[in-house]
């Protein structure tokens, strides 16, 4: 068991009535790449800002290597590198000068700053553009310079906010490779907050799904998929020949199947249990040829939308509940 690098306990942030982060509990191990996934406005950025001590939590506590993020922000910021969403640089300074400045803010010595800046510019492939003003940089270049900037202080933990946004496919591959490298070779802990599931899926060891300030699921992608299955929600994706109405009826009549629908040339069968075996036997017995059969649930997109649906349903139920409670009071006021 590796030691925990980031520990978040009961972290809450409320802006007036609105609760941005609601009693968040999370531990991230050393050397792990953790993806914090959620739609816009789920409270991901607020969480990362609280980890850096830039925003004070309403209640709860976050620690990074046993340092309290609210009480010791300076110590925390010394070992945490933060790459903000849409990172900005001083436009009338060159890329290299921007890195030097970050080095000076971290109290590094001049020779050390120059050595690291050269090395990092090389690593992110920005050596050629290093002496151009950052005002002329494209978004992808800024992002790469941003990573070099984060690495200037040689951080143990890196927090990235939407790092994959607005980068071209080649840049994306480079970025993802770099992230893996930072975790595997350098042993850094990386927390990525994003709403781009596909990219995150490729690099993360574990993901947490974050909706409306709550962490509704957390684990490896496989774990999340299995948990979904245990929750009694199965979707079978199949294609068979001859593809006709009788096939649909046959599948719909199966024991355990809750619904059957058509999606392009595939048929989706939702059920409360694993019906793969039964379906195969049934189709074979009725003279159908199975062309394709797949249990859905393996990729993040699906897991995410499933969890998201669940959370939304829960939210809707809670909302109606609240509505019911509120209604008499309104009438009471009128009367």
């Amino acid at each position, binding site marked *: 068991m590796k030691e925990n690098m980031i520990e978040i306990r009961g972290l809450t942030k409320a802006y007036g009535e609105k609760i941005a982060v609601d009693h968040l509990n999370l531990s991230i191990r050393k050397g792990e790449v953790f993806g914090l996934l959620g739609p816009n406005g789920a409270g991901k950025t607020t969480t990362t800002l609280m980890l850096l001590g*830039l925003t004070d939590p309403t209640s709860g506590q976050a620690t990074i290597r046993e340092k309290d993020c609210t009480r010791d922000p300076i110590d925390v910021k*010394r070992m945490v590198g933060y790459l*903000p*969403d849409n990172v900005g*640089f*001083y436009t*009338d300074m060159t890329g290299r000068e921007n890195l030097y400045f970050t080095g000076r*803010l*971290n*109290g590094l010595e001049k020779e050390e700053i120059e050595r690291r800046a050269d090395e990092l510019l090389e690593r992110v492939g920005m050596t050629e553009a290093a002496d151009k003003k950052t005002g002329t940089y494209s978004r992808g270049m800024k992002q790469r310079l941003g990573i070099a900037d984060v690495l200037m202080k040689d951080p143990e933990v890196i927090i990235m906010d939407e790092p994959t946004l607005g980068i071209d496919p080649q840049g994306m591959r480079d970025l993802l490779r770099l992230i893996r490298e930072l975790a595997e070779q350098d042993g850094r802990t990386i927390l990525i907050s994003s709403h781009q599931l596909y990219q995150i899926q490729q690099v993360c060891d574990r993901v947490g799904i974050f909706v409306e300030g709550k962490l509704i699921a957390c684990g490896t992608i496989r774990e999340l998929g299995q948990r979904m299955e245990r929750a009694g929600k199965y979707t079978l994706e199949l294609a068979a020949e001859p593809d006709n109405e009788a096939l649909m009826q046959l599948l719909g009549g199966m024991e355990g199947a809750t619904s059957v629908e058509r999606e392009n040339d595939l048929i989706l069968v939702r059920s409360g249990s694993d019906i793969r075996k039964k379906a195969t036997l049934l189709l074979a017995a009725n003279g159908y040829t199975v062309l394709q059969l797949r249990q859905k649930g393996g990729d993040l997109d699906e897991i995410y939308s499933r969890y998201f649906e669940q959370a939304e349903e829960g939210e809707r139920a809670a909302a109606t509940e609240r509505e019911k409670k509120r209604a008499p009071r309104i009438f009471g006021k009128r009367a």
Partner: protein
Amino acid sequence: MLPESLENALRKFAQKYAPQQAVGLKALYEKEMMDHIRSRKFQMILILVLITSYASLYGAISGLSDSTSEYLFLSMYTTSGNSIPSFLSFIALLGPFVGIILGFDGISGEKSDRTLYRIAAQPIYRDSIINGKFLAGASLITVMVFVMGISIGAIGLIVIGFPPTVEEVARIFVFLLFTVIYICFWLGLSLLFSVVCNNAATSAMASIGLWIFFSLFMSLVASMIAGIVYPVNTQMQQLYNSYANYALDLNLNRISPYYLYSEAVTTIMNPSVRSVNVVTMQSLDGAISGYLGFWQSVLLVWPHLAGLIALMLATFTGSYVCFMRQEIRAK
């Protein structure tokens, strides 16, 4: 010369025990200084201010032949030539502009360039960001004002060929000191607006609005209020109210840093000014006309100095408090 190993050891020691605050502040201060000096807008105002100061010097020298003052050297700063205002009034009017230019996009610029998050995520205390900005601006103002004041004196010296006395030099020094504080007030004010407004343009507009109000309209407002409180429309009212009316008018005007500064530097640079308040015939009775000594003049404007420093500190503290309380948060 220290041996290299010892020097290295000393540097390491200093690095280890230097407070983190000083490290961050120093880096930010240097960066701000460099930013200002390189920036187009600073170079622009520098040229503008230089041209106007030399123009005023030219005007003063051409008008100097009519001067009867014993303090010829000071007259270069205070005399206005034909249609060209004096150096003093130029600085009173244009000085705020320098302060505003240096400060108006201080924090809002960092926000709109999205650099504030990156800086705030470095291991520095948050107040060193705003302290660095203010200190860099203030140092630049100090250098600029003293260089300008002394260069005017130097050129004037060559042209008129009449050396200043020690007292005159002291007076010029106090005048320049007042100027620095006065411009720093405007720097603090524009920094305050840059914290409060998220948009650099809004912050610039607010500062410039106040500048124009204080320089041009404050006197109108003051006389209007004084006229309402102590009306002087009939002869009877004039008899009873004119003293109170004038005193109120004066005190209201003094709220404006522009007036406060003008009054103070006029007194300092013109030894024949003997009082800054209302003087009645009674108090003049038996007085011998003459010049005030240096310390007497300083004594006269001591409250002005205190007032200007207080105003400067108030605006800077305001921006400091607002910035520290403001949450750095996602948009």
